[in-house]
Structures are given as C-alpha cells and as structure tokens.
C-alpha cells in the first residue's frame, strides 16, 4: 500500500546548523496494517510523516501510495488520499466555524469546489450519525463553533474528519499527547475502532510506550533518523515495555528520554 524507499531529508542544507533528520528510511506497509511509531525526541518521527504527507519536499528517495508515485505531488494533492490528525488540537479544525461546517469541508474532500450549498440536510443527518459513534454528545452541538470544544473533543472530531472520506493512508502524529490521560485513552480506543472498521492503513506516532504495543499490528522504533527496530507478529506480542526500553538502549547506545515518554 505505502512504500517509502531510500528516503533522506536534511534541514538547513549548507548552513552551520545543518541537520540530517531522516538518514535512510525504507518502509513498506501492507493493506490494513496499523503501525505505531516510537522514538526519542528529535528522532525524526514527525519529519517522516511530514515527508509522506508532502509538508516537506524530500532530498532523496521515492514514495509510492497504492502503486502511484506521489514523491513530487504537492501537499494538497496527496491529502486527497491521506487523512491526518496532528498533535496540536488547534491544527485540525477551523475554530470559528461550526462542527457541521468543518465536517462538510472534510466530506467534500476530492470533490469539486463550487457554488453548491456548503452543507445539505442529508449531510447533516450523516454527520449526526457519525458523531453519535464518538459518544461525546457532539451530535447535539452540530451548529456550535468548534472553538467551544475541548482538546479531546476536537481531536475526536479531527479523527472523524480525517476518515469521513475513506483515506488510503491515515497519519497520526502524537494526536493524544496534548490530552489528559483519560481523554487520551478514549481517543486511542476511538482510533482503534475507526481504523478497524474502515480497515485503514495507519501510521501512528505515540509517546506512550505501552500504547505502542497495545494498539496496532506492528511497532517501529526510530532513532537519529533511522528505523532501529521493526516489531511484528510473535516477537511483538511477546514484547513488554521494559524489554522494549532495554532493547532500545542496547541498539542505539543512548538513553531514552523518559521524561517525555510515558512508560505506563
């Protein structure tokens, strides 16, 4: 489904704070695979997702999605096939517009933009149905501005917006990191439910080691712009958080920055 070959990305080329953010990434995702990504601060996780989604142009390598080469497509074109939820809850929605209007823009993904009504009665019904599944009571607040929602509600809404038109790939960049633990859990479970129901090919960065093993079907660990570890199948189901940390420190020769990483 997704193929990343020989991906390299440098920041500040030629300046004295030149930084090789992605050294040589090779990654292949099968249809319906749900991959969690972990790694220390500055490991290149976000950069990888941003290269795949076209926020950054890459220096070397090739990215194919569903056999189509998207390496040189601009961000907005790739977005037609890629759903995204960011770490910052403010980034996924338009705060000064209503829930319904936000969802309408998401539903229009890939359709022509024109002078048709922004949202129809039929669409409103669909939005209410979908919002009900989130179990946050948002279906009754459809005409309220998104600016009134809490961070968790916004992330749940953004998740719905990212998947309401089924994407070929779902990219989640620590989308629960800014939420308090109970809400974060709820959004994670919601993510699992949506991914399973739609059989979405998913890459999820998480700062939560336990969640990285608990959710998804495969776990990747990154360090200094490289993939250090790729866990799947039996090896993954036998893995514990403690052994994961031990393995990381052995392979990378570095200590994991435990402050930011949630171990439990």
């Amino acid at each position, binding site marked *: 489904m997704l193929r990343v070959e020989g991906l390299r990305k440098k920041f500040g080329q030629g300046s004295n704070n030149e930084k090789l953010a992605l050294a040589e990434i090779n990654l292949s995702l099968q249809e319906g695979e749900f991959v969690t990504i972990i790694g220390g601060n500055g490991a290149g996780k976000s950069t990888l997702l941003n290269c795949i989604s076209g926020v950054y142009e890459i220096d070397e390598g090739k990215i194919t999605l569903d056999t189509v080469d998207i390496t040189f497509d601009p961000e907005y074109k790739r977005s037609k096939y890629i759903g995204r939820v960011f770490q910052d809850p403010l980034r996924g929605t*338009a705060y000064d517009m209503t829930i319904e209007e936000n969802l309408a823009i998401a539903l*229009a993904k890939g359709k022509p933009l024109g002078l048709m*009504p922004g949202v129809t009665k039929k669409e409103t019904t669909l939005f209410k149905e979908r919002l009900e599944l989130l179990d946050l009571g948002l279906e009754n607040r459809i005409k309220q501005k998104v600016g009134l929602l809490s961070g968790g509600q916004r992330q749940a809404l953004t998740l719905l917006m990212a998947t309401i038109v089924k994407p070929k790939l779902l990219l989640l960049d620590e989308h629960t990191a800014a939420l308090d633990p109970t809400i974060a859990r709820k959004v994670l479970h919601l993510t699992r439910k949506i991914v399973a129901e739609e059989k979405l090919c998913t890459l999820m960065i998480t700062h939560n080691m336990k969640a990285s093993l608990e959710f998804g079907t495969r776990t990747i660990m990154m360090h200094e712009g490289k993939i250090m570890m790729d866990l799947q199948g039996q090896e993954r189901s036998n893995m514990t958080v403690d052994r994961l940390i031990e393995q990381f420190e052995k392979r990378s020769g570095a200590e994991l920055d435990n402050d930011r990483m949630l171990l439990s």
Partner: protein
Amino acid sequence: MTFMVLQGSLELGIIYAIMALGVFISFRTLNMPDLSVDGSFVLGAAFSAVMSSSGHPFLALGIAFLAGCGAGSITALLHTKLKIQPLLAGILTMLALYSLNLKVMGGRANIPLMNKTTVFSILEKTALGDNSKLIFPLAVLLLMLLLLYLFLKTRLGFVLRATGDNDHMVRALGVNTDSVILIGLALSNGLVALSGALIAQSQSFVDVGMGIGMVVIGLASVIIGEVVFGVKTLLRRLIAVILGSVLYRLIIAFALEIGMPPTDLKLVSAVIVAIAMAMPIIKKRLSAVKRRFMVRRHERSK
C-alpha cells in the same frame, strides 16, 4: 448635526460599506492584511470616470469590479507563488497601481465628471429623483451583502472561511489554499473597486490620491461594527460591517462639525483604528486597575 449632514454621511457610509465588505473578506475571512485596497479603490474610480465620460456609466461599475478582481489576483499571486509576505505583496500592488491608475486616467491626476452622464444623472430623471444617490448605492450594497452571504455559505465559501482560520487543515483536506487565497483577494478587491467606482460617479470627481488610507477606513468600519454590533453569526457580522461604515462617517461628520480641519481627518482615522485595535488590551488594563483599587479600598475599610 443638520439633516443634510446626516444624509450625506449615510450616502457615503453606504458606498464605503461595499469597500468595507471587501476589507472584511481579506482581513477577517482570509485573515490576511491586504494593503492593495488603497490602489484598487482608485482603479475602480478611474475606470468608472473614464467609461462614464464615454457614456457607459452602468457598464463602468461591472468593469471596475473586474479590474479590482485583477488587482487582487496580482497580490495573491505575489504572496502564494513568489512567497512575498502579504503586507509587502499588498504594498507592491498598491504602488504599481498608482502608475497604472494614472495610465487609466489618461495621464491626468484628476478627472471631473460635471455634466457627464453618470448612473445618478440618469436615475435622477426617474421616479427616484433626488433620492437616487441614496437608493441606488443602497440597492447595490444590499445585493452585494446578499451575494456575499450566500457565497460564504457555499462549499467554496466554507473553504474560504476555513483557510483564514486554519490553512493547515484546508490543505490536509485536499484543497489548494493558493487558489482559495486568489479567489478571496480577487473578490475582496473587486468589491473595493466597485465602491470606488460608485464614489467617483456620486461625487463627480476622481483624484489619483483619493485612495490614500482607504484600507484604514475599511478596517475602522469593520472594527467599529464588531465592537458596537457584535460578531455572533455570519450574517450579523456582515451587517455589522455596514453599520460600522455608516457610524464611521457619522464620527467623521461630527469631527468636522466641531471645527476640525478636513486635513486632520486621516489623523482621526488612524487614531480611531489604533484605539479600536487596542480595545482588548485597554479593557484588560482597566479591569486590572479597577481590581487593585477595589482591593485597596477593601483593606482600608478593615
């Protein structure tokens, strides 16, 4: 204030409200400070004068709108394709338009339209009579208000509003924000030029410098409207812009009435906008001072 002054303020307020709606699109909807307004206002006025002189006053309004759209597109392209900051992109367009406006005006710095056919000289002869200067611009304004409101409720309108709120989200949802900005700034400057075109015919005079500070006047109208009439719903916001524009004219008329020289008006406009922009901070400071005062009084009474 005399009735004459009030009516004059109302007439001007209505025509300038069309310009303020344009400024609302760039500053509020797209969240982009677009300074090309000063130039596109005169561009509209210049086309209006030249075409009225040659006997096409109504067509002139349409052409002025389109010319404004062109000017806005240039600013948008400078920003999106050449990555020039919005402020500077607007200034560049404004500067270029100064020369272009002189060209449109045939090299003259001003054009009087006395004894030329204007939409008003035509309408005066109908049942509207002397009221045409009030009623025709009002009809145009209400039409623009309605069209703009309906447009902002379409799918494209949604995306335009969302781009100002959060362009990351719009790109993540598969829309080319560059095109959206182009459409928004074109529309914005189209309205500004239409307003300039109406002013030219209403005052029977065009001067190449008449656009100076126009963006500040537009912004003042938008902000006064927001402060006085609120921002609750989209329709209310648009109506607030119009009322803000009329209120602004009344403030100016009042300033003149109490003996302020007309040459000081731009100073007044700048001060109004500065105060209006600083309103949130001023309110915060005032409430802090008040709280401190209350605490002190409370302590003393103990």
